[in-house]
């Protein structure tokens, strides 16, 4: 899709310019919380701290630090669009599967990025997308398994030009 990619690059440049102006008055952006009021699930109130976000997902559980593969560049030149692939080792059967997979950007204005929901019909608990990263930070993935256990994976990403992440 080369044509599309060009259009995307152009728009990203515009966004980068826009962001400079935005940064000057960034403090006021908190007032925006009201805006998110009618959105589903995680979006209801923007979560600004990674500890709070973790608590919401994990409760009191301690996640195991294994089983999640988080592929993301070590150095991201453009924080507006950082490709990532998440995958979790799982047989994806009715008895044992990944139910949800959360991805967080610990240093973005809003730490949640997305929550992916799988079923045994997914066949494989894996997803690829592109995220915004405001600055150099840890990207954290948490998987909720059908047996009530959790897995966690973490990668540090160095960002050269920050994206206007939310």
């Amino acid at each position, binding site marked *: 899709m080369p044509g599309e990619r060009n259009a995307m690059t152009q728009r990203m440049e515009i966004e980068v310019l826009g962001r400079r102006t935005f940064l000057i008055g960034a403090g006021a952006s908190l007032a925006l919380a009201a805006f998110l009021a009618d*959105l589903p699930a995680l979006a209801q109130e923007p979560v600004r701290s990674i500890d709070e976000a973790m608590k919401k997902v994990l409760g009191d559980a301690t996640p195991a630090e294994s089983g999640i593969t988080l592929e993301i560049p070590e150095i991201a030149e453009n924080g507006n669009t950082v490709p990532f692939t998440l995958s979790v080792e799982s047989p994806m059967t009715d008895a044992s599967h990944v139910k949800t997979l959360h991805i967080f950007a610990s240093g973005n204005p809003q730490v949640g990025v997305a929550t992916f929901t799988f079923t*045994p019909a*997914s066949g494989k608990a894996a997803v690829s*997308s592109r995220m915004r990263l405001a600055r150099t930070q840890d990207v954290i993935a948490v998987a909720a398994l059908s047996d009530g256990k959790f897995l966690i994976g973490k990668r540090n990403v160095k960002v050269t030009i920050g*994206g206007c992440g939310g």
Partner: protein
Amino acid sequence: MSAAKPRIRVPDKAKVGDVIEIKTLVQHVMETGNRKTADGKVVPRNIINTFTASFNGKEFFKADILPGISANPYLAFFMKVPGAGEFEFTWLDDAGVKISQKAPLAVG
């Protein structure tokens, strides 16, 4: 712009039991709600907040999305082929615009 036709890539043919990859891309500005115009007005948030993928009416993958996902959201994910049928993909944004796209899958 938010109603642009999405791009879908699914295999032309698959075998029952195969795990196939599905790639989707939709054009959307994914306005974070953090940005301001030159005269100081906040640009309202407008993102694709929900994506769902169903096959023969049964949902097998869903994404709840926040502003941390880039503009023109790309999503690739998998499905275990239960048989021939039809995919339906839907994208829903903050302004209430719903985009949907169907795609057939042949088995053989």
